[in-house]
C-alpha cells in the first residue's frame, strides 16, 4: 500500500530534519565557547543528507532521507586578543568557534519548515487512509 509508505518517507525526513535541528542547537549553544588552542575549539557541525532509495520497500516511488554523517566545518576559527580571559594562551589570544550565528538561524527556520511540510504530508495521508477504511460504509 503506497499510502502507508508515506509514513516511512515522511518519518525518515522528519528524523533527518530533527538531527539538523539538533546540530543547529549545538552550534548555537557553543557559539561563544572560547578555548586556548585550535584543536580544542568547537567547530560548526553540519549533517549530510542523502536519498535513501528503496530503503523501506522495493517500490521505486518511495525515496526517504538518510543522514550519512555529520561533518565539522573547515572554516577558519575566530581568534581574538583578550589577555584577561581565563582561557587566553601565552600570547593573549583566545580561539572562538567558526559558528555563523545568522547562518544557523536561517538553517533552523529552513529545518523547521521542512519538518512541518512532512508532518502535513503525513497528516493528509492519515486522513486519506481513514477515508479509505470507511469506504463502503
Amino acid at each position, binding site marked *: 500500500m503506497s499510502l502507508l509508505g508515506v509514513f516511512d518517507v515522511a518519518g525518515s525526513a522528519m528524523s533527518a530534519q530533527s538531527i539538523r535541528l539538533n546540530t543547529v542547537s549545538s552550534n548555537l549553544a557553543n557559539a561563544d565557547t572560547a578555548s586556548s588552542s585550535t584543536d580544542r575549539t568547537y567547530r560548526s557541525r553540519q549533517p549530510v543528507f542523502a536519498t535513501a532509495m528503496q530503503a523501506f520497500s522495493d517500490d521505486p516511488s*518511495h525515496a526517504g532521507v538518510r543522514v550519512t554523517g555529520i561533518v565539522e566545518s573547515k572554516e577558519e576559527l575566530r581568534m581574538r586578543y583578550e589577555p584577561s580571559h581565563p582561557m587566553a594562551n601565552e600570547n593573549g589570544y583566545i580561539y572562538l568557534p567558526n559558528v555563523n550565528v545568522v547562518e544557523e538561524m536561517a538553517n533552523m527556520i529552513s529545518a523547521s519548515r521542512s519538518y512541518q511540510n512532512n508532518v502535513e504530508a503525513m497528516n493528509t495521508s492519515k486522513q486519506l487512509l481513514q477515508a479509505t477504511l470507511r469506504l463502503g460504509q
Partner: protein
Amino acid sequence: MRFDLDSAMGLHEQALYLRARRSSVLASNLANADTPNYKARDLDFQSALRSAAGMETGNSVNVATTDAGHLGGLGGDVGDMLYRQPLQPSLDGNTVDAQIEKVKFAENALQYQASLQFLGAKFHNLMLAIKGE
C-alpha cells in the same frame, strides 16, 4: 446477466491505486527538499492510468505472463515516473520546489478523495441493488 465486481468498480480502483502511488512520490519529493542532488519526480497520471487500464502497453514494464500459473506484477513499474522540469534549480543540484510539491500533493489528495467518493457511490448502488428496496 453476468456480473463481476472488477468491471462494476470500473476504472476507479486503478485510479485510486495510482493516486496513492503518486502521493508517495510527491511525499518523497517533499521529504528530500533539502537533499543535495535529489531530482524531483512525478507520475504521469494519464498515461499511467491508461496503461493500468490496459488501453496502452507502450511504456509499462509489467511482467509478461506466458503461463496460466504465472502471477502478474502489480505496479512497481518505473516507466511512468518522470523527472520534473525545474523552474529554479538550486546550486546543490536539488530540483525540489517545496511550494509546487505541496500544491500537487494537496491536489492529488483531493483527487484521491474524489475517487473514493466515486467508489463509495458504486458500493452504495450495489447495496441498493442487493437489497432491492
